[in-house]
C-alpha cells in the first residue's frame, strides 16, 4: 500500500476529487445560515412584524381610518376612548380637543413618522456611507478631511441646530427629512469608515486591484456588499433616532405643523388636557414607543444574525 498521492496525469484526479471528502463543502450558504439564525431570533421577528404592520397601516391609512383625521366636530370634543367613561365604538380611541377622531389621526400619524424616518435615514445613510467608505478606503488626506467633517458634525448639537434650521426653512415633511438627513449621517460615516479601513488591507481587495479593477468597481462591487449589513443595522437605529427627533421638534412646535396628525404634535396638543384626559398623550406616546422599540429590536436582530460565527 502507498499513500494516496496526486497523480500527475490529467486523468483520474479531477474526477476523484468530487468524491473525496476533503472537497466537501459546508451545506449552508451564508444566506441560508442567516435565515436559519433569523428564524430563531425572537427580537428580530418581533421587530420585523411590528414594523411591517405599522408600515401596512401607514400605506393603507385611507382604507383603515374610520374617519377623516382633519374633520373637526366641536360638539364631540374630548370623547373618551371605548374603554373610558362614555366611550363609544364610533370613536374607538376617542376624540381630541377639536373633536377629531383620535384613531384616524393615529393611523395617519404612522405615515408621517415612517416617511420622515425612512427618507431621513436614507439621506443620512447615503451621505454618511459615501463619506465613510471614501475616507476609509483611500486613507491619507482624503481620510483626514472625512475625519474632520465627522468631528465638526459631532460637535454640533443636533436638536438645537435642527430647531434653528426648521425656523429658517420651515417644518414641512420634506424640510424635516432634509434637516435630519444632513444632521445624522455621522454614525454611518464612523461605522463604514472603520469597516472600509479594515477591508482596505484585505487580500481580496488587493486581488481585485491586481485583476485590474478600477476604484469605483472596488468600492461598489467589493467594499459595499461587505458593509451593507452593518449599514442596515445603523440605518435602523438612525431611523429610530430620526423619528424620535422629528417627534421632539413637532412637540416643541417647530416640526410638523398643525393640523397635521403627527404623533409628537398630538402629544403637544394633548398636553393641555393630560391631567384629566391622559389617553391623549398616552396613546400617541405608546405608538411612538412601540414603533421605536420595534425598529431598535430589528436593528439589534440584524446585527446578531449577520454577526460572524460565534459573536452573536
Amino acid at each position, binding site marked *: 500500500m502507498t499513500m494516496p498521492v496526486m497523480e500527475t496525469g490529467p486523468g483520474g484526479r479531477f474526477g476523484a476529487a468530487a468524491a473525496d471528502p476533503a472537497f466537501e463543502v459546508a451545506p449552508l450558504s451564508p444566506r441560508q445560515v442567516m435565515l436559519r439564525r433569523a428564524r430563531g431570533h425572537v427580537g428580530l421577528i418581533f421587530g420585523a412584524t411590528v414594523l411591517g404592520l405599522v408600515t401596512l397601516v401607514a400605506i393603507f391609512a385611507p382604507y383603515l381610518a374610520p374617519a377623516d383625521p382633519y374633520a373637526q366636530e366641536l360638539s364631540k370634543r374630548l370623547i373618551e376612548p371605548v374603554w373610558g367613561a362614555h366611550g363609544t365604538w364610533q370613536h374607538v380611541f376617542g376624540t381630541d380637543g377639536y373633536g377629531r377622531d383620535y384613531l384616524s389621526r393615529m393611523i395617519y400619524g404612522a405615515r408621517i413618522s415612517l416617511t420622515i424616518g425612512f427618507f431621513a435615514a436614507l439621506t443620512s445613510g447615503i451621505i454618511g456611507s459615501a463619506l465613510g467608505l471614501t475616507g476609509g478606503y483611500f486613507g491619507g488626506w482624503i481620510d483626514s478631511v472625512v475625519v474632520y467633517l465627522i*468631528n465638526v458634525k459631532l460637535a454640533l448639537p443636533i436638536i438645537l441646530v435642527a430647531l434653528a434650521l426648521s425656523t*429658517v426653512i420651515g417644518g414641512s415633511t420634506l424640510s424635516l427629512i432634509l434637516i435630519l438627513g444632513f444632521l445624522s449621517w455621522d454614525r454611518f460615516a464612523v461605522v463604514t469608515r472603520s469597516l472600509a479601513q479594515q477591508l482596505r488591507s484585505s487580500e481580496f481587495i488587493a486581488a481585485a486591484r491586481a485583476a485590474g479593477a478600477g476604484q469605483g468597481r472596488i468600492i461598489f462591487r467589493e467594499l459595499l456588499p461587505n458593509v451593507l449589513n452593518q449599514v442596515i443595522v445603523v440605518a435602523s437605529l438612525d431611523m*429610530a433616532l430620526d423619528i424620535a427627533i422629528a417627534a421632539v421638534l413637532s412637540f416643541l412646535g417647530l416640526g410638523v405643523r398643525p393640523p397635521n396628525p403627527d404623533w409628537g404634535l398630538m402629544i403637544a396638543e394633548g398636553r393641555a388636557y393630560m391631567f384629566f384626559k391622559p389617553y391623549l398623550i398616552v396613546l400617541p406616546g405608546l405608538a411612538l414607543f412601540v414603533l*421605536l422599540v420595534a425598529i431598535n429590536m430589528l436593528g439589534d436582530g440584524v446585527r446578531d444574525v449577520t454577526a460572524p460565527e460565534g459573536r452573536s
Partner: protein
Amino acid sequence: MLRFFVRRLIIAVLVAITVSIIGFALLRASGNLAVILAGDRATPAEIAATAHKYGLDRPLPIQYLDWAGRLVQGDFGRSLFTDEKVSDLIAERIGVTIGVAIPALIIALVISVPLGMVAALRANSWVDRTALAVAVFGQAIPLFWLALVLIFVFGVMLRWLPISGSSTPAHFILPSVTLAVAVLPPFMRLTRTGMIDVMNSDYIRTAWAKGLKPGRVLFKHALRNAILPIVSLAAVSLGFLLGGSVVIETIFALNGIGQLAYQSILRVDFPVVQAILVFVSLCYIVLTLISDLINAKLDPRIRLG
C-alpha cells in the same frame, strides 16, 4: 505625549472655527438682520441706516471675522430683544443646566456600567436580558413623553416630587432621571461589548494562568481596558448635557441653557441662538479633548504611539 496633545489641539481648533462659521451662516440664513433690527415699520432708508450702524453692509467674511474676533475675547454679542449680553444670559443659566446634567450622567453611569459588566460576564443570563431590555427601553422611549408620564405619576398621582421650576434640589430629580434614561443605553451597550471583548482576550487568559484571584482579573486587568471607550463616551454625553436639553428644560420649566435657546429660537433672537450653538460646541470640543488626554493617560499605546 506633547506631540499627541498638540495634534489634538490643532484639530480641535479647526473644528471650533468651522462650527463658528456654521453658527454664523445660520444667523445670516435666518433672514435680513437689518430688517429685524430696524423694526416692523422701518423705511428702506432706515433699514439701510441700521445695516450700516451694525456693520451689516460689509462683506460677509469681514463681518464673520469681526464677530469671531469679539467671540475670542469672550464677547458673545447681545440679545436682539432684551439687549442683555449673551454671555451674561448664559452665565445666569448654566448653573441650572449643570444641576441636571451632572446628576443625569452620574445616574446613567452608576446603573449602566455595573449592569453592562454583569451582563457581559453572564451572557444570555436574565441579567443580560434585563440589561438589553433596559437599553432598548432607553433608546426607544420618546424623552418628552417619558417626562410627561413621570410628571403624571410622581408629580400628579403620587405627589412625591415637584414638577416645575428649579427652586429646590428636589426639582432636579425628575429631569435628571429622565435625561439619565436617555444617555444610559450607549453606556450599557459599550460596557457590555467592551467587557465581552476584553474577557475573551488573550491577556485575560494570561491573568487567569497566573493564578490571580477573580476580583483582580476582573477589576485590574479587564475593567481598566474596558473602561477606555467609556471615558470618551462620558465626555461626549456630558458635552451635550451641558448644552441643555431643550425639551426637558421646557417641560420641567427649568431656566437653563436649553430653555434659553428654545425661547430665543421662537422669537428669532438669533445672536443668542448662534452664541449658544458655539458655546455648546465648544463645551463638546473641550470635553472630547480632555477625554483624549485621559485616554492617553490610561492607554500607553495612544500616548506613545
